[in-house]
């Protein structure tokens, strides 16, 4: 199944929980009987989660570095550095 524009919008709206109640009920009824649609929903869910994870990984990594650099975090505690790693001076 190669989803078209409308189906992609419908799948994304379903995953975003933004389908109107009536459309959601109809969509869930189709899911019960349409195996290809269920597979497509699973695939879209995975892609969506992957895209979100990658986006947030970059965002959090950059934010962490920036906040660490400008001293927004708790001060480090002596003796809590990673074993076998040289201390930063």
């Amino acid at each position, binding site marked *: *199944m*190669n*989803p*078209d*524009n409308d189906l*992609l*919008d419908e799948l*994304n709206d379903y*995953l*975003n*929980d933004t389908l109107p109640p009536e459309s959601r009920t109809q969509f869930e009824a189709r899911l019960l009987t349409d*195996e*290809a649609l269920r*597979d497509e929903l699973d*695939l879209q*869910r*995975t*892609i*969506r*989660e*992957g*895209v*979100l*994870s*990658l*986006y*947030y*990984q970059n*965002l*959090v*990594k950059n*934010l*962490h570095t920036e*906040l*660490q650099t400008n001293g*927004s*975090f*708790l001060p*480090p*505690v002596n003796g*809590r*550095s*990673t*074993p076998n*790693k040289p201390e930063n001076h």
Partner: protein
Amino acid sequence: MTDFCPDFSNPFYLLEQLRNNDDAAFRWLYVRCERVCMTYARPRTKLPDDDLSDVLQDTMVTFLVQLRTGKFTYQGVPIEQYVRSLFWKKCVDRWRKYRHERSMSSLQITDSTDPEQSAALALYGDLLAEGTARAEEKEIWLQRVETALSRLEPPCRELIENFYLARHSSKTVANMLGLSDGYTRLKRTRCLNTLRKQLLNEYALHDDA
């Protein structure tokens, strides 16, 4: 003129702003979570701060994805406390991984200050091992999506990110990109189908088409 000062201490407002990718909301929550999580973990574990920082970042990603995919529902618990519980499970999970991989030569989680923790450790038991397997499987999938995304042309990646990240209609995205709505939807669908095909072909996933 008065500067607008967002009230992120209101959890409903904070969650809405996080869903809208508000940078100030991310910062506000991240600083608070760092304090809450590190203050909680440091007396309870000998995991080094570098590891705790890694776990914290991973926890924040997990939480934000949960929020965007509807897997997190606010139930009255302060958000930083919810993040802390996720964080601590991941700390324990990491500790177990260390124990398996390195025989835990010098790292130990201590629970002398918190009897609740020893009960939690016992309870998590197999669940954590199962959680590790799930996390590894998820990691593999993320790598697959990352690889497939990296092979797309930059405009395609941008469209796909807009589709999943921005909570805008295709019309708004089209305006942002200076394109027509019809063209944007068509292009987005083609890009997504290319990504989809790569995932299905390369990793031998079943396709009913």
